C-alpha cells in the first residue's frame, strides 16, 4: 500500500507549478511535504483525491491510477483517503457537531442521534466537545482546524492528507495534533502532512520531501535533511532570508 507520484506536471495558465514531481510514500509512514509558500504543496495533495487533474504524469494509490477518473469513481477512494484542508472548509450551515456527524450519517447510514453521539466522542479527541453547538463562523481558525481534523477522521481512512494541520494552533494544541498523527500511525494509518512547522517536522516525520521549483528537491529522514549539504535545504530549515533559494513573488 503506497502512494506514488510519477513525473507529475501541472500548470495554471502560464504558471508551471509542478514540473516533474516524483515521489513514493510508503505504507504506515508519516510523510512530510515541505517547501516555500506557493510552491505547490496543496496542489500536490489535491491531486490525490481527484480535486485537481494533472496535465501529465501518473498518480498511483495501492498500484492503481487515480488520475483522469470520472467524479463518481473517486467516491470509494475518498472514503479511504481523507483530507484535512488548509482552510478547514467546515460547512457554514451546520453546527460544529453536525459537521462532524455528516460523514457518519451519509456513509455509515447512522441515525441522527447515533451520529451525534459518535461525533461528540470525535470532538473530545481534539478537545472541542465544549463547542459542539457553535457555528463554524464563531470559531477561531485554530479551533476550526481541529474540528476539520475530527471530521476527516470520522470515516477512519487508511490514508490521511493533512494540509498544514498545526498552522494557526498554539504550541500546546499543535503538539497534541502531532501526537494524534503519531497515534494514528500505530493504527496503521499513513499520513501525508504538509507543514511549515519545524517542530512537527523534526519530531514526528519519518521522511520528508522538500519541494522546490515544482520537483522533489530532496527526500529523506529528518537526520538526512539536517545533514544535507544542500545550501537551499539549509536555508529553508534554518529560516534565513538571504541565500540561494529563489522565492517567486518576493
Amino acid at each position, binding site marked *: 500500500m503506497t502512494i506514488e507520484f510519477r513525473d507529475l506536471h501541472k500548470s495554471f495558465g502560464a504558471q508551471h507549478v509542478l514540473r516533474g514531481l516524483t515521489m513514493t510514500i510508503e505504507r504506515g509512514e508519516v510523510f512530510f511535504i515541505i517547501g516555500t509558500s506557493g510552491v505547490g504543496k496543496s496542489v500536490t495533495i*489535491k491531486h490525490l*483525491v*481527484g*480535486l485537481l487533474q494533472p496535465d501529465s504524469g501518473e498518480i498511483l494509490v495501492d498500484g492503481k491510477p487515480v488520475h483522469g477518473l470520472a*467524479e*463518481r469513481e*473517486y*467516491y*470509494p477512494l*475518498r*472514503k479511504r483517503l*481523507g*483530507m484535512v*484542508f488548509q*482552510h478547514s*472548509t*467546515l*460547512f*457554514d*450551515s451546520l453546527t460544529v457537531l453536525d459537521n462532524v456527524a*455528516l*460523514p457518519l450519517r*451519509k*456513509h455509515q447510514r447512522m441515525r441522527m442521534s447515533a451520529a451525534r453521539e459518535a461525533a461528540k466522542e470525535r470532538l473530545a479527541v481534539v478537545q472541542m466537545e465544549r463547542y459542539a453547538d457553535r457555528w463554524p463562523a464563531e470559531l477561531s481558525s485554530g479551533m476550526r482546524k481541529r474540528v476539520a481534523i475530527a*471530521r*476527516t477522521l470520522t*470515516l477512519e481512512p487508511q490514508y490521511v492528507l493533512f494540509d498544514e494541520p498545526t498552522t494557526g494552533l498554539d504550541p500546546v494544541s499543535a503538539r497534541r495534533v502531532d501526537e494524534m498523527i503519531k497515534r494514528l500511525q500505530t493504527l496503521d494509518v499513513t499520513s501525508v502532512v504538509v507543514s511549515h512547522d519545524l517542530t512537527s517536522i523534526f519530531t514526528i516525520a519519518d521522511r520528508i520531501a522538500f519541494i522546490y521549483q515544482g520537483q522533489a528537491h530532496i527526500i529523506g529522514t529528518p537526520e538526512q535533511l539536517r545533514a544535507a549539504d544542500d545550501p537551499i535545504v539549509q536555508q529553508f530549515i534554518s529560516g534565513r532570508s538571504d541565500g540561494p533559494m529563489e522565492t517567486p513573488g518576493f
Partner: protein
Amino acid sequence: MIARVGDVVIGVTREVGGIGVLMLQVLRALLPWPSMDARELWRNLYRMGVKSLPIILATAFFSGAILVVQSGIFVRRFGAEGLLGWATGYSTFREIGPILIALMFSGRVGSNNTAELGTMTITEQIDGLRALAIDPIRYLIVPRVTAMMVMLFALTVFGDFVAILGGALLGQVVVGVDTSVFWHSLFSNLGTWDLVHGLVKSVFFGLVISLTSCYFGISVRGGAVGVGRAVNASVVASAIGIMVTDCLLTLLMK
C-alpha cells in the same frame, strides 16, 4: 462588431449548456432511487418558501389591485362591469400571477441561493464535500431544486388567491363594481384550466430559477468579486429564462 456578437453567442451557449448539464446531473442523482437529505430539504423549504410569503403576498395583492384600477377606466367608459372579474382572473391566473411571483422569487431566493453556493465554492466547502465522498449535486443541489419548485408552486397558489382578493376589494372601493358581480363574472367565465395553466408554468419557472441560480453559484471563480458577478448574472439569466419559458409554454398549452 461581428466578433463581439460571436463572443456573446458563445458565452450564452456555454451558460445554457452548463445549465443543461446541471439538469442532467440532477436527474442522474435521483437514480436509482429519488432520495435526498431531509434536513437540507426542510431548511430550504423553510427559508425559501415560508420566509418569502410576506413579500410575495404583498406583491400579489397590489398587482391584483393595480390591474383592477387600471382597467376601471374602460369598465366605466364601456359599462363593462360584468367583465371585470373575468378579465382580472384570466390575466392573473394565466400570466400576471405566475410571472410576477416568479420574478420576485428569483430576486429574493434565486440571488440568495447563488450567493450562498458561490461563497461555499470560493471557500472550498464544495470541494470539502467532495473530499468527504459526498456528492454536492445530491446533497446541495437536489434539495434546492426540489424546494424551489415546490415553493414557487405553493406561493403562486397563495399569490393568485390574494391578487384576486385585492382585485375584488379595489373593484368595489375604487371602480364601484360590487364584489358579488365580480365573483359571478369570475366563476362563470373561468375554468380550472385557466388556473392550472398558470400553475404548470410556475413549476417550470421554479425549475428555471433553481437550475440557473445553482449553476451560477457553483461555477463562481475569483473570490468575493466573482460572487457579486455571479449573483448579477444569475438574476438576469433567470429573468430571461422565465420569459423564454413563458413564451414556449403559452404556445404549447394554448
